[in-house]
């Protein structure tokens, strides 16, 4: 496997994806924020400018009135009072006669920068750029019938200074926004891409090493990515179960077949060493029986493995319990009669379960077979079925030999034969198959047994299809 070339190439897409996500986030966030900052600035500048113009116009109106009422003297007084009061920034006030003769001029000394001679004295607002170009003079003019012109103006200098400070503040804000945007982008990327990257790493590890027990870490956040990780883990679990089951099954089949195959071989070898025709015939018959056993064992082992790994094909329909019980009891009627065992049934009428009828019959037949096998003459076997909560409970009880406590934990194991069981014919697979089929139907099977008193096997199957989690792969 070419690890070195495979990993970097495969890492690229997710890194690129992360970068793209981060830049998109940053771009959108920064652009929106800057647009808001810019708009704020514009609005502020506009309203400041309007306020200044309002001031200029209202002052002009006031001074015009003074000038009209009291002439130049009254205007000069008013200007002086206003300036002394210090209520506001000093304004530019000028009275001009004719084209250039200044009758009155009051201006802050810093105003030398303005070439006021360039003012044309138009009605309304007029703007004059300072010679250095850093500020503007906004002037409003009023013409009197005697030909004089009253001009009131205000420099934009203060406003500009305020706006300049504001710009500085906004630039800092903008810088912070950009920084936050980029950092946010990075965080979003990390939190989004990291789990994906972890998922990719986990999958790649599994593919590379073939070890299917690796799992993707799931954070407690439970977002979509975690859900995906969770589902992915669940899928891995299923696959693991399946593969383990199959490995297990193969091992078992190989192991379990070796013994009968060895017997078969031994029979043939012994027969070859003899010249007696009767011995040959005997060997052939035993071989046939042995091959039947191997076939039955193979079929049962396959059934168990399929049921355990969830690959068993279950032909599920509503199965009548009474019907199944009747069929199985009928099958064992003769044997029970021969052994003088009394078989009784007690089935709640109308009871059904969603199940594969053939498999369910196999379960019941195995349990009844065991019950009769381990019950001595004169004993009793009782089959009963009742609804128990969301389950249908099927009991097969006998008055037989029971099960020794040390055997109890092992009776479900493949090929386990308890001391009692060794004396009887059988494959040692019956109960394993019973449990595998019941579990595949989403049910459980338990046993209660007392040596010398008997055993009761209880099968619980989900009564409704909704409750059935019949394993499917």
């Amino acid at each position, binding site marked *: 496997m070419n690890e070195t070339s495979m990993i970097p190439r495969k890492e690229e897409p997710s890194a690129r994806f992360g970068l793209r996500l981060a830049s998109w986030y940053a771009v959108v966030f920064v652009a929106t924020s800057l647009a808001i900052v810019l708009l704020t600035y514009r609005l502020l500048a506009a309203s400041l400018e309007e306020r200044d113009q309002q001031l200029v116009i209202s002052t002009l109106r006031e001074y015009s009135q003074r000038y009209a009422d009291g002439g130049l003297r009254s205007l000069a007084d008013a200007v002086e009072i206003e300036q002394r009061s210090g209520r506001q920034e000093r304004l530019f006030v000028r009275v001009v006669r004719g084209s250039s003769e200044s009758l009155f001029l009051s201006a802050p000394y810093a105003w030398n920068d303005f070439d006021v001679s360039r003012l044309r004295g138009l009605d309304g607002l007029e703007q004059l750029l300072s010679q250095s170009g850093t500020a503007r003079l906004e002037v409003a003019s009023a013409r009197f019938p005697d030909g004089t012109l009253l001009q009131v103006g205000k420099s934009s200098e203060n406003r500009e200074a305020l706006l300049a400070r504001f710009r500085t503040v906004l630039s800092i804000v903008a810088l912070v926004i950009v920084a936050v945007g980029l950092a946010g982008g990075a965080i979003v990327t990390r939190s989004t891409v990291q789990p994906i990257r972890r998922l990719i790493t986990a999958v790649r590890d599994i593919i590379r090493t073939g070890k299917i027990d690796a799992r993707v870490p799931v954070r407690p956040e439970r977002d979509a990515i975690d859900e995906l990780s969770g589902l992915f883990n669940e899928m891995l679990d299923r696959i693991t179960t399946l593969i383990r089951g199959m490995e297990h099954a193969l091992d078992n089949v190989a192991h379990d077949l070796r013994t009968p195959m060895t017997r078969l071989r031994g029979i043939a070898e012994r027969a070859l060493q003899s010249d007696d025709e009767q011995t040959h015939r005997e060997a*052939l*018959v*035993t*071989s*046939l*029986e042995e*091959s*039947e056993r191997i*076939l*039955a064992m193979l*079929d049962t082992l*396959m059934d168990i493995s399929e049921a355990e790994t969830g690959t068993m*094909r279950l032909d599920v329909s509503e199965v009548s319990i009474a019907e199944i019980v009747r069929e199985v009891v*009928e*099958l*064992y009627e*003769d*044997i029970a009669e*021969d052994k003088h065992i009394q078989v009784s049934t007690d089935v709640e009428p109308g009871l059904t379960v969603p199940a594969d009828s*053939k498999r369910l*019959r*196999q379960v019941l*037949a*195995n349990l009844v*077979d065991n019950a009769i096998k381990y019950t001595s003459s004169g004993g009793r076997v009782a089959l009963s079925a009742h609804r128990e909560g969301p389950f249908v409970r099927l009991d097969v009880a006998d008055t037989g030999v029971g099960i020794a406590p040390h055997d109890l934990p092992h009776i479900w194991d493949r090929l386990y034969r308890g001391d009692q069981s060794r004396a009887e*014919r*059988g*494959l040692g697979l*019956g109960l394993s198959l019973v449990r595998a089929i019941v579990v595949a139907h989403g049910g459980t099977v338990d046993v209660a047994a007392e040596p010398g008193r008997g055993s009761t096997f209880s099968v619980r199957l989900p009564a409704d299809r909704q409750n059935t989690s019949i394993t499917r792969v």
Partner: protein
Amino acid sequence: MVEDDATIADFVSKGLSESGFAVDVATDGEKGVELAVKGSYDAAIVDVMLPRLDGLALIDRIRARGIHTPVLILSARRTVDDRVKGLQAGGDDYLTKPFAFAELLARLQALIRRSTGQTEPTRLSLGDLSLDLLSRRAERAATPIDLRPREYALLEYLLRNQGRVLTKTMILSHVWGYNFDPGTNVVDVLVSRLREKIDRDFEPKLLHTVRGVGYVLKAG
């Protein structure tokens, strides 16, 4: 018979010859089609897994040519797929490997009987044992025998296949309709009950055990 495994082909064709059949063997699907087209056969035995042309395709091929010879399909698969089940519904039959020769023979004869439409007898008999299928009465040496339903079903099955060995699996599926081996000795129990009724007080014994294979009903 179309079968690529020489040992199986050999033991089946020898067995069938001994039972009075004439058998031709083809070792792959194409040769099988050739045989079916050239000759006229009462039945065909076709393995599913065949070189060059698989068994199911072979059946399609010969059916397309208007050849309606009944086919017994042999499959090594444990679970028989739906396609094969479909063919069974269409009048053919299948058998999974490994199989007992006795079962193959019985299935083959049933197929031929069905396709040639032989009339059903109303009375079956072997020596002094007879079974009236209409009145459902059995008697041996003119002595009426009282049979329970499953004993009756078994006796009828044995009489229909007299001289032929029937395996436990065949009996189980015929008498109880079970198509799996529940790992029981129910068949032995039923057979010994029937033997008790038809053989215990009479000579010669008719119901014989063939060890390792099954049971057979025959005189001597």
